[in-house]
């Protein structure tokens, strides 16, 4: 009897540890060590990537001798302060595309949680049957490197000296930049009202811009108030135009009589560098059947752009803005190296698109 309680506690502890191990995916990890199917091979690889066990992940590859560990990390966890370096691989979905006895193709959709919200990445992976197990062939992308060189950059930079606290009240301060809303279009979407348009900095100094909108009821009272948040290029250089989009979830047009627009601008220190070229822009249907605007970003300056952000405006044949979409690019822009981007647009909007304009915003680790 005197051993009953210690034995009971020991048994309960063992059971609890076992439950925790199963819940943490231990059973699945153990089952997948063998990778008896292509799906298991991809799952095992991505599970190791989730755990940031890069040595183990690399060892699982069919072409591990061709893939450097740093390249695998850069592919799945980012590099150079890119968005993926501030992200976690939360989970993933798998679809088999094609399978024979020797090889298979798997489509994987990676779901990252990032500092700017969820991010999805779709990849097609080749899986080979080697001996008893299946192994993933990781795409070997030879990272383009720029030859060591000096890139002279002599674009303008604007710095500001504001009025000091001890100055007399009459001492002149520098005015806020003049910005103007060029267009505004209110759209009723399935579950929301969306306001899209463009804003321009008409001044000769840089502006930090935020566009807000207030929906007014028929009696003039405020129904809802929202701002463009990150669906705008906040820092606008002189004469630069940016699209904006403001979403009002759960709002219906019949609840609203009018919209009051409000654009706020602040004078900020900024640099005309870097210049980012947006090339090869085209509308296409992607592998998942979604309409997307594709293109490439090329950083023409000599400094790394950590987190590029693409904001695209779409126009109908009369030149009216009919949609604005945005997307963060998960790779950093290294000097002179093109990086692809894709932003999606709704299927019902795509046929009406006659033209589009892409602007690139960016966030840097050391400065924005």
């Amino acid at each position, binding site marked *: 009897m005197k051993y009953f309680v210690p034995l009971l506690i020991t048994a309960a502890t063992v059971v609890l540890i076992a439950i925790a191990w199963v819940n943490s995916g231990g059973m699945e990890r153990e089952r997948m060590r063998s990778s008896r199917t292509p799906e298991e091979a991809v799952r095992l690889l991505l599970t190791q990537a989730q755990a940031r066990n890069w040595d183990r992940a690399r060892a699982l590859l069919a072409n591990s001798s061709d893939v450097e560990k740093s390249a695998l990390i850069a592919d799945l966890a980012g590099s150079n302060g890119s968005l993926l370096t501030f992200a976690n691989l939360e989970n993933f979905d798998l679809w088999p595309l094609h399978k024979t006895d020797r090889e298979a193709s798997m489509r994987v959709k990676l779901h990252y949680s990032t500092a700017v919200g969820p991010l999805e990445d779709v990849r097609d992976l080749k899986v080979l049957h080697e001996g008893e197990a299946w192994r993933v062939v990781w795409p070997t992308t030879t990272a383009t490197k720029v030859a060591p060189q000096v890139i002279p950059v*002599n*674009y*303008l930079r*604007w710095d500001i000296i504001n009025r000091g606290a001890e100055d*007399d*009240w*009459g001492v*002149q*301060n*520098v*005015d806020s930049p003049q910005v103007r809303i*060029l267009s505004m279009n209110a759209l009723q979407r399935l579950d929301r009202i969306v306001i899209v348009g463009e804003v*321009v*900095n*008409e*001044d*000769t*100094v*840089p502006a930090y811009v935020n566009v807000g909108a207030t929906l007014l009821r028929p009696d003039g009272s405020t129904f809802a108030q929202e701002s463009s948040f990150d669906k705008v290029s906040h820092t606008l*250089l*002189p*004469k*630069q*135009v940016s699209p904006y989009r403001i979403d009002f979830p759960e709002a219906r047009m019949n609840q609203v009589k009018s919209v009051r627009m409000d654009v706020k601008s602040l004078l900020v220190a900024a640099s*005309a560098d870097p*210049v*980012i*070229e*947006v*090339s*090869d*822009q*085209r509308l296409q249907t992607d592998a998942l059947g979604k309409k997307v605007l594709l*293109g490439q970003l090329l950083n*023409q300056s000599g400094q790394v752009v950590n987190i590029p952000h693409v904001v695209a405006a779409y126009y109908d044949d009369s030149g009216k803005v009919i949609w604005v979409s945005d997307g963060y690019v998960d790779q950093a822009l290294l000097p002179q190296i093109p990086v692809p981007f894709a932003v999606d647009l709704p299927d019902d909007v795509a046929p009406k698109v006659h033209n*589009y*304009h*892409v*602007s*690139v915003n960016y966030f840097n680790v050391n400065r924005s």
Partner: protein
Amino acid sequence: MRLLLASVLIPFSLLICGAAAELRGPAQVTAGNPVSLASTGTGSGKGTFYLTGPGQASKRTVTLGDEIQVHGDEVEHAGRYTAVVCDGRKCAATHFFVRAAEPAKVSLLVHPSRVRVAQPNAISAVAFVFDKFRNLVLSPAQVDFKASPKQGPAVSQTRPTQNGVTWIRLTSATKEGPAKIGASLGKASELRVVQQVASEACNLRIKPEWNAGKFFVETEPVRDCNGNAVSDGTVVSFTKVDASGKTTVDAPIKRGVARVEMPIKGSAKILVASGVVTGNELSVEGRQ
């Protein structure tokens, strides 16, 4: 604490003031000048003197029956003052106004700090006249405004103040550059600078250029309709449409022109815009 004491004691003292007690002084004095108050009918011996006014409260012991001297530094702020003298049983009170002293300082508000060229009545300059104690001088005074553009003669105008304020409106010059706007009154003067900047680009034109096998597009010097060079840093958007799709580059003007390198495949159409202004269109053929 002194203000609290004064605000409690003075109304109380006024309530109990006897009809016989009297304190006399001038109805109006100039800020910073000493004042002499005569106390009569309040007995003799020691009494307590209270003085309250805008930003001012003081208390001291005085000899009743003598002239009560209010020092200049006690009446520096313009406005209504109340003086009370009490002998322990009764109090006497009087009021007087302190007006601003001679104009000694001009505060100048000029708006905006940047303005496009050739904008009618776009600049406003407002002058406030103060004395040496920072009291607004309400009596009329003549303020001389002077605007000096970067090029051309200075323009002067004299305006009288009304209730301490006067203003002018100015049209910006047709040439860019800083304009100095000053206001003076006697020895007091203030100077502000308004930056006059070029307006929208006018006749925005681009030209092609092949250099070492690379294709460049460059604007002609970008100027507004008055011939002023548009500020460096102003963004010019280049758009190229060719077989590979559409390419856009937002390039800032540098030393008067904006220039970008654009690889082309086959025939390409190149457009240019700056803000809401569009320029000419180029059709170019790629080289093998």
